[in-house]
């Protein structure tokens, strides 16, 4: 029993970080129907950004996260401003964004491989090997701090969306784009800000990932598959869904890894993806026929 609980604890720790990784992805889909295949590539970029700061000036990755947030926000806003307006108004907008971001993912991967080579990297702050003990359970310090960082950012995102004027505009755009335009929401501006926020979340998640997992430029393909499966489970565009989906799948995959073999744990994500598309395609918190 205590082993079971220990595995659940580790699963929750992992799930919290997955939730942050997925939050930007689901936000972009919810606000503007952008399927950002490059999201995980930008997470890896965030990891390399943090790694670069760590290697060059010895900046702690948690502080690196605070630097990554504004830098990636501006990067995202500019990227949207430059690349996306020509897709707006296309009747196949979402499909177009898949192609565009697929290309962006390759470009990001290629550039990272050029500048950092393809070998495994990881930041190694002092707490990376520490652990806290609570009775018979142990919590790795790195994962604990990563979970805390994720929670702070997710709460901040939630508060931003629910309690600010721009946040109201974002929620309105998510629920009904035309209605948002009619009441005076500048959906172009909302889209630019949302893309910036989504990118900032990717950068921040990358900073946390930099000391949790070894990473290399092509790592993002594996992550984007996991992230897409958990936001499909939660319901595309739903922040709550992303969190619930992330926690559920992370815990289940940890259990599967413990009680069968680690080989089977990635299967959980793909299995869940197939199952949810068969049984409840709109996901746990998604709306039917919203695409």
């Amino acid at each position, binding site marked *: 029993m205590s082993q079971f609980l220990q595995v659940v604890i580790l699963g929750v720790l992992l799930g919290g970080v997955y939730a942050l990784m997925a939050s930007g992805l689901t936000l972009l889909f919810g606000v503007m129907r952008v399927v950002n295949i490059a999201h995980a590539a930008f997470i890896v970029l965030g990891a390399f950004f943090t790694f670069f700061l760590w290697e060059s000036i010895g900046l702690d990755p948690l502080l690196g996260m605070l630097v990554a947030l504004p830098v990636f926000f501006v990067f995202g806003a500019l990227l949207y401003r430059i690349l996306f307006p020509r897709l707006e*108004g296309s*009747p196949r907008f979402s499909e177009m964004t898949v192609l565009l971001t697929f290309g962006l993912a390759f470009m990001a991967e290629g550039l990272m491989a050029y500048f950092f080579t393809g070998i495994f990297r990881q930041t190694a702050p002092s707490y990376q090997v520490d652990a806290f003990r609570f009775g018979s359970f142990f919590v790795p310090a790195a994962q604990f701090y990563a979970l805390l960082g994720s929670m702070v950012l997710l709460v901040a995102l939630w508060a931003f969306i629910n309690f600010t*004027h721009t946040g*109201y*505009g974002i*929620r*309105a755009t998510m*629920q*009904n784009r*035309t*209605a*948002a*335009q*009619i*009441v*005076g*929401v*500048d959906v*172009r501006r909302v889209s630019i800000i949302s893309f910036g926020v989504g990118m900032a979340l990717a950068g921040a998640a990358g900073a946390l990932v930099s000391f949790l997992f070894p990473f290399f430029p092509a790592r993002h393909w594996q992550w984007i598959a996991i992230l897409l499966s958990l936001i499909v489970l939660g319901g595309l565009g739903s922040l709550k869904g992303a969190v619930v989906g992330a926690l559920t799948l992370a815990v289940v995959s940890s259990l599967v890894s413990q009680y069968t073999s680690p080989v089977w744990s990635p299967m959980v994500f793909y299995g869940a993806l197939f199952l949810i598309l068969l049984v409840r395609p709109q996901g746990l918190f998604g709306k039917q026929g919203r695409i």
Partner: protein
Amino acid sequence: MAFLELHGIRAGYGIGPDILTDVSLDVEAGRTHCIIGPNGAGKSTLLRVISGLLAPRDGEVMFDGQSIVGRRPNQVLSAGICFVPQDRSLFPEMTVRQNLIMGAYLERDRGLIAERMGRVMEMFPMLAARSQQMAQTLSGGEQHQLSLARALMIEPKLMMIDEPSLGLAPKVASQIFDVIRRLGAELGMTVLLVEQNVRMGLAISDWSFVLDLGSKRFEGPAESILDDPRIRDLYLGRLAERKIQEP
């Protein structure tokens, strides 16, 4: 100079054909205008062009002395033109109250918002009773009232309403029409209405425009336009032609 002037509007969607070929018309301040015409005449498209949701391919829109063509919807709204589309376009997962607050998105003065909220709730007692209910749980008629009420939250100079009676029971529709009539009669608002139910639409209007095949055919006072022989040609004549073509 008229309050709202359209000159030679040509518009369509995407790479599709022109829906509006050449529309010019003048809307006078303080009056209620009804656009009528057969299906596919381009009535709703015209309102979308004025509201900035659809950029025209050609033509000029002058409002209150300045050109508003090419402006984005939020800029058109801040100029004073509000649009109530036929699908009601509410925020389904917000309460009635939140929907109304969203209506005043461009207004930053909280005191003013609260004041308008009070006035709107007075006008629509049903909304006051259901202020904490999610918009998606309202009935069709109630949703219509909410979308009208939400538009009033910005206190527009010109209110454009697309097919207010669509999908409503006759009794509910006449309540909605009564509200629209009061906008003009009591609040002195300028109203531009599109309505399939021609008789009801004209009954509350001062002036009428007749649209067909993407351009304005003629116009006249709302109370006498149905007597115009050209109306019969438009509705019945085309119908008869079609009957002949499709044996």
